[in-house]
């Protein structure tokens, strides 16, 4: 077996070390069994008996994407930090945040949501379920101005193609270079219909090439090794050496640098600029815990929350000065120019842009 291939690409020991500092202890097995039993009891329909004991502390329910609240995401640390100040119980409920909210409508149990993207905020806003966040967003550490009064940014990054310096000396310096690259340079991307990063790539190309986007996709097609459903498949194919470059984020190398001590994964920076991606939170207007929901909004831009983001979500915090970022982030290569569509533009563009994408790549 060759040395570089699949087995020893991801060194995890440093990450494990870091994990030990991350506070939330997983539930002990006994408690786990208990909760399982409970779910069974509920299933059988004997609903009444179970949840009596914990009625004392008020509960703040926050809907979040699965990755956010998993033990390797920022959720557990955020939960601990917030609970230290609020005398409440912060509970993350995971799943597909927006579809779930749309299905639940007014009856939703959510007091707040976190982890929405700009590509869904137009539809989220149209539900009228959300209340203003009430934060001053004039001094955020983001490359664009933010004036939205409902959706509050908590972290950001840019789309970028990641390459391995041991396999590629001279990455493309612009999107034009990438389009003109020889056919044997293979990239792997995500499907815009099933993946947020895939959607961002589609808008990135649209922002650079406008009406020529379809032509650009046609030129790119020979270089596209394949399109995957989600980011994980793509990234796995890249680290296994199957593809030369993978569509990911400018902040992805931070994981390899900090957790693995590996600086061979880098973002190729393109002259035309990179598409800006931001993740957002909002409070639900009909919450029965308005003070707690507001307190959570206030907490999001605090340093306690923001300093969890870099190594919890491997992205840039929305409000944290560069000198407070963990060591390793200063090594990240960042674009000079940032491309971004407002919510309305993105909503109007994504249908036609998807058609162009599909037509060009189906040929």
């Amino acid at each position: 077996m060759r040395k570089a291939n699949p087995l020893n690409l991801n060194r995890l020991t440093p990450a494990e070390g870091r994990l030990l500092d991350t506070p939330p202890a997983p539930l002990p097995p006994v408690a786990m069994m208990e909760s399982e039993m409970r779910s069974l009891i509920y299933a059988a329909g004997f609903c009444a008996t179970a949840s009596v004991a914990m009625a004392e502390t008020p509960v703040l329910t926050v809907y979040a994407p699965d990755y956010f609240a998993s033990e390797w995401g920022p959720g557990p640390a955020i939960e601990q930090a917030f609970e230290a100040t609020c005398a409440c119980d912060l509970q993350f409920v995971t799943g597909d945040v927006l579809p779930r909210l749309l299905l639940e409508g007014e009856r939703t149990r959510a007091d707040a949501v976190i982890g929405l993207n700009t590509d869904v905020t137009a539809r989220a806003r149209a539900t009228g379920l959300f209340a203003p966040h009430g934060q001053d967003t004039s001094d955020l550490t983001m490359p664009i101005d933010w004036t939205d009064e409902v959706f509050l940014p908590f972290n950001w990054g840019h789309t970028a193609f990641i390459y391995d310096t041991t396999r590629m000396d001279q990455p493309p310096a612009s999107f034009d270079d990438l389009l003109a690259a020889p056919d044997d340079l293979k990239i792997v991307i995500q499907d815009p219909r099933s993946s947020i990063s895939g959607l961002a790539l589609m808008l990135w190309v649209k922002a650079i090439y406008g009406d020529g986007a379809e032509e650009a996709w046609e030129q790119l097609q020979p270089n596209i090794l394949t399109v995957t459903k989600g980011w994980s498949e793509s990234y796995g194919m890249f680290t296994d050496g199957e593809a030369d470059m993978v569509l990911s984020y400018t902040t992805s190398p931070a994981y390899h640098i900090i957790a693995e001590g590996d600086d061979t994964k880098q973002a190729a920076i393109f002259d035309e600029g990179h598409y800006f991606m931001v993740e957002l939170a909002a409070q639900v207007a009909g919450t029965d815990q308005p003070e707690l929901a507001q307190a959570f909004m206030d907490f999001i831009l605090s340093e306690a929350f923001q300093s969890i983001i870099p190594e919890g979500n491997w992205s840039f915090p929305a409000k944290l000065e560069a000198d407070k970022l963990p060591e390793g982030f200063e090594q990240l290569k960042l674009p000079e120019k940032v491309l971004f569509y407002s919510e309305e533009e993105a909503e109007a563009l994504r249908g036609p842009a998807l058609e162009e994408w599909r037509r060009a790549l189906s040929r």
Partner: protein
Amino acid sequence: MSKLTGWTSIAVLLLLSFGTLAAVLSRAEGLTAISSDDWRVLRFTLWQASLSAVISVILAIPLARALARRQFRGRGLLITLMGAPFILPVIVAILGLLAIFGRNGLIATITGLPIQIYGLQGILLAHVFFNLPLATRLILQGWLAIPAERFRLAASLGFRPTDIARQIEWPMLRETVPGAFLVIFLICLTSFAVALALGGGPAATTIELAIYQAFRFDFDLGKAAQLAALQFLVCGIAGAVALKLALPQVTSGGLDRAVERWDARNPWLRAQDAAIIALGALFLLTPLTMVILRGAAGAFEMPATVWQAAGRSVFVAIIATTLCMAMALALAFWLNTLNRGRLWVEGISLLAIAASPLVIGTGMFILLFPFVDPTRVVLPITALVNAAMALPFALRALVPAVAQTEAQFGRLADALGMRGFARFRYLYLPRLRRALGFSAGLTAALAMGDLGVIALFSDPTRATLPLEMYRLMESYRLEAAAGAALLLLALSLLAFWIFDKGGRANADA
């Protein structure tokens, strides 16, 4: 008794398939017309599913025959291991296949040839990799169910292998192959992540991806429901055709003697079987070896929560297996007494495979939400859905076994006045054991690895093992994820082996 349970099973299956579909439809804001693109997607879906199923079955026949007429050391282990691809999580299987057939895979590295896996060939390769084991097992069941006496008689009549093929094996294949084809066709029909990743681009869009798009990209529940209904329709037509083609075999019984194959003693046939088994094993086991190698490196990086998730997956698997066996036995006995309506019941039992997991999940959410917090019941629901998904496989194995037992011994048992539990215990159980063990093992293994309906509602503190594996991947911990995948593989295989072994105890195979 079996009638009541049979009806209950049918009700559950209808709820999971059409009930959830209706629930989704009830929340739709109008219907969007199905576009010409959707028809193109449908054509592609049918094309790739048919090809995948045909190839899987054609390759499975010689492999099953070779395995049926040879006895060798490690045969049982080989059969169990060869079943592994079927229960692998999609993402793990894709990376395992690419490690062999990919641009940077073993074959390309050794031969230096540029291998082009992406495209229809990639989809077929992956689908055959997934489904060849299942087809082989289903057909092998058929071979092993042929009474030893018939081979004795054939030998004493001086049958050559071609005579045996025509007189004994062909009628058996007529009975088993359409069913095997059908379930594989249906599995490939709803395949989505594989078709996309190995198909190389949006040209390889299946209906399931279109449903996903309607949900996630457009949030158009009406369109999602329509596409799901279209998927059911296609499944219904395919099911009707396949079940019509399957000729039930009416045969005389045997005395459950060990099978001795005098016809296969010829050295040329011996070499042929050895080559077929070796090729099959090579194709199925090399990507698996890569999965194991990748996972072994990550096995020590796995956090404790992975083990807790594994515990939860075992729990789901046990519940799902119990439910599935109860439904399958009830339906198999009930089906045996039915004349009219038999096709309907069999058809309904197949519905769950053709159902879109996304529609089931969303529909269940809509149905449950007014009454109970859906996250609290996510594990029992997962178990129930898995039981329904595995039911068609269980029925494929159980229905012929029940029919045959009843045909052969029913009158004798009647004459002896064997009824109720005694009849089940002494007449059926010994004869259904192999089919029961196989289907229980398959259900447990499938339930263990299923990500299923929990995309919309999961509970952060109650992840199952496959979900935990995805979470590890999403947070860049690919090596630990590979370790979790190995654990998942080991648990699934162990569950399969335990049940299957239980079913084969004292049997000659």
